[in-house]
């Protein structure tokens, strides 16, 4: 990771990351542990895209999914019982929601390339993520 990438990751960690994780925890009504493999996310030469891309690839679908599920107390309770941790990484080279999400033993793993299919894949990621969470709640 070069200096540009390091600065962009730090800016995201200090700004949007905190806001987004706080928002998710507020929606679900409990504290979810987040584990992010920042090194794998910091794609070289794309530092200027991190802010929007990280948000839209990893967090916007998650915010939408938990919002939909936690719309009633039953959903909030189910999320509290089942979703303990979110792992975010870019290891498998996945660019579609259909292969980016895994859920096992209370851990949701999001494995997606950080700067690919950012806008076009948003709706698909949200649908896939909501479906996988619903199947496991």
């Amino acid at each position, binding site marked *: 990771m070069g200096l540009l990438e390091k600065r962009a990751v730090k800016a995201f960690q200090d700004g949007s990351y905190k806001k987004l994780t706080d928002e998710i925890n507020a929606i679900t009504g409990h504290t979810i542990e987040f584990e992010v493999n920042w090194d794998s996310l910091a794609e070289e030469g794309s530092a200027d895209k991190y802010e929007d891309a990280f948000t839209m690839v990893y967090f916007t679908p998650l915010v939408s999914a938990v919002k939909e*599920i936690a719309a009633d107390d*039953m*959903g909030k309770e*189910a999320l509290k019982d089942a979703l303990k941790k979110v792992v975010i990484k870019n290891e498998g080279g996945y660019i579609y929601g259909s292969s980016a999400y895994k859920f096992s033993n209370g851990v949701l793993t999001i494995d997606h390339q950080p700067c690919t299919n950012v806008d076009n894949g948003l709706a698909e990621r949200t649908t896939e993520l909501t479906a996988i*969470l*619903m*199947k*496991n*709640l």
Partner: protein
Amino acid sequence: MNKSLKSVPAINKQELLFHIAEHFPATILSITTDAGRSYTGVVLTIGKVRTDEAFLVLQVTDDRNALTTRFLHLTVGKIESIELINPADLLSILSLGKLTKNETYEVSGKLAVQRGFQLFSEAIFNAHAINVGVPVMELPTDGLQLNRVLKLTQKIQQVIIDLLKEEDALSGWKARYNKIAFINNDDLEVKGVNDLVEIYFPFENIEAPEVSAEKLTDLLMSIL
């Protein structure tokens, strides 16, 4: 499938062909006549003439099962045997629609089922202004079993909505019951216990047939 087929009642060729023509017209049949000749095709029409003899018109298909412009007019009594080629729903065809192939299930979570239970109660309330209660059930953990419970819930909901269209059924239910429970069991049973309706069914057996709307209606009527 084989197990289900064993419960199919015996039917004659005429009943079978009428049922196929009406409900499964795309089914390709290989028909052998009593003279030993075989023809493959789909039933175009089937009917009875004044002598009460049934006849059928078969549109003949080629080796690749594509329809040709050849047609066969044949008396049903001349048919020796009928072979069904890759039928869409053999169980339904051979049972004349009384049985259907088992539902296939996807994975569902408990939350979806719990919401389905809530919707069950709301849908019946919206249809007839009656509180039948939110179903109570010890939910399985398997996703396919949960999906079966969800689908059965929707079917039971429809049966109850249809049943309560009758005024006497509605008043009977209103006067006696305000709770409902689903209980996993080998067979379909319905019991009224104080203010509770208990529906017993193989909710968790994904190989078991779907609930029969007719039987469930009869059993529900018996406790009203």
